């Protein structure tokens, strides 16, 4: 009996130690990756990185100014298509489809779509747009990223709308406000901080995507502002430079990685702060 209880307590402590150890074994390398990235990136960064376009092979210097602008264009394009559709689908799920079979099916499809590899989205956008037009374009990259944003935004919008108390909706409806107006000015507005956060998470996820851009946006060594032409993007440029054999390009890849991560994190944090303060809660 005593032996048994000793064994049980030993087991208890053993498992506790194992759980703590595995957490340490996970957290330490992850922190190390992050710290190494900050160190390498910060030591490679300079002003030219933000103001110059890539230099030809063998020449020192150069930067990724065109990639930063290109990424911004493609992401703006993707957001302008993905965010409205995603939010609208979320509104349907939460406000119109509660308890319906159709809504269940849409929800499930959105979750499954969320897990489809990004490179498959690239093939789809390539087959749809690039094959027809016979050339790579910023627009096709935007479409591929927009498709990836939709499911994430839909599910977070739905979850956030579910947290809006029914009493608020009923109050609006009781005043004779039409249902669409109730949804727009009451439900969506109440849930807007959460919805904005969801949009930013979707944005952050696609901002670093490389695979769908490989054969849609394709990359460009020069300035390009046209949606109809190949355009540079930060993740693409990092990939090209990382697998190149030149030290100078490796340095730029590290700097690009740091800038990419900082851009993602700063945009997410800023929007979270503003959303919490209510500045972006919608004007009217």
């Amino acid at each position, binding site marked *: 009996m005593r032996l048994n209880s000793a064994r049980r307590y030993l087991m208890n402590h053993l498992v506790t130690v194992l759980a703590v150890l*595995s957490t340490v074994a996970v957290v330490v390398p992850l922190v190390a990756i992050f710290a190494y990235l900050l160190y390498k990136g910060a030591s490679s960064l300079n002003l030219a990185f933000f103001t110059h376009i890539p230099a030809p092979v063998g020449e020192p210097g150069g930067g990724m100014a065109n990639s930063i602008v290109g990424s911004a264009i493609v992401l703006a394009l993707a957001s302008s298509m993905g965010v409205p559709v995603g939010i609208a689908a979320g509104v349907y799920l939460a406000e119109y489809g509660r308890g319906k079979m159709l809504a269940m099916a849409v929800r499930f499809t959105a979750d499954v779509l969320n897990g489809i590899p990004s490179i498959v989205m690239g093939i789809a956008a390539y087959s749809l747009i690039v094959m027809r037009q016979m050339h790579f374009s910023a627009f096709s990259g935007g479409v591929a990223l927009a498709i990836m944003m939709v499911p994430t935004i839909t599910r977070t919008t739905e979850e956030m709308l579910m947290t809006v108390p029914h009493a608020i909706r009923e109050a609006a409806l009781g005043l004779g406000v039409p249902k669409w107006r109730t949804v727009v000015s009451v439900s969506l507005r109440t849930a807007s901080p959460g919805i904005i956060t969801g949009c930013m998470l979707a944005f952050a996820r696609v901002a670093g995507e490389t695979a769908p851009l490989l054969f849609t946006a394709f990359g460009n060594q020069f300035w390009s502002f046209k949606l109809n032409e190949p355009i540079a993007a930060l993740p693409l440029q990092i990939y090209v430079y990382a697998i190149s054999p030149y030290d100078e390009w490796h340095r730029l890849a590290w700097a690009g990685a740091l800038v990419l991560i900082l851009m993602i994190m700063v945009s997410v944090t800023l929007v979270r702060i503003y959303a919490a303060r209510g500045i972006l809660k919608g004007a009217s």
Partner: protein
Amino acid sequence: MSIEREPEPSSPPTAPSTQMAAMPLHAPAIVNFVAAAEPVAQNGPPSPIRQFLSKRGNGALADNAFAAAMLVCALSIFAIVLFILTILIARSRLSLAQFGFGFFTRSAWDPVSGDFGALPFIFGTLATSLLALAMAVPLALGVAVFLSELCPARLRAPISFLTELLAAIPSVVYGLWAVFVLVPIMRDQLGPWLYKVLGWTGFFEGYNFGVGLLTASIILAIMILPIISSITRDIMQAVPVSQREAVLALGATRWEMIRTGVLRNARIGIVGAVILGLGRALGETMAVTMVIGNHPVISKSLFAPGYTLASVIANEFTEATGDLYLSALIEIGLALFLVTIVVNAIARALVWAVTRGAPARSI
């Protein structure tokens, strides 16, 4: 029912006056509040409020248009999936017709003579994903148990934040790190050590360049760890506290409580989380492409270079010359699409069963 027939004093003071206004002028002189509350106004001309409301319209058009727009957007999610499926099938028709099902069982990959088979890529994908799961799952379970059951409240938020942060690092950045840090470690320290200790198994033979199946598996494991551990933690926290209290009240130690009260109830969801991680690993492209060596061979040694379904598309798609070559690559994309859909559908069904379905509550 009887409560509604209570006399006036219980109704709000404004109600009678509104009803008075609604009274027709030729109403009987003897008026009391109870009579005023009856809907006598039905026969007479409509009240000003009713007139106002009917003039304004009920907004049915706007309401229906809005609802229809929302429905269309929701249905577009179906449309996207169907559209991807049809376009992948249509564009890979050439390869489907030429090779049939044998495409997935042949190991030839010769763009020059137009002979294609996907077996080496399937092998590479399965080998790296399963190895990554084998490394990541025990660690992820440990982290989830720690975060949900053992962790002091003060540490929980920072560690959760950190894992979320790491999930936000793009794939290409992990790849960059792997190329410049993990590959040298693999080549100079970890690889030789593994050969010395485990060389007799035959899994660590051949020349070790630092790139290969094992390196790709390690970076995959690092990438899927945060996903598996955070979903598992959510599922474990969905187990009702009363379950834990009941097991503890029977005199169980904390580990016995976790095992019988939490893990047993959450096991279906944990399997779902692991399968979700598998789905992510199967489709992961950039980081794997950068460190796997990109050579279509099937080898027993984990030091050998390999190739995965996703990385062959990433590497060769833009340089594919000829329709058959391109169509073979799109067929590989189709296979990846179908496999990840099945894997994700199973995983989601399992996770849902635990976190929001009936089974979790009836246990």
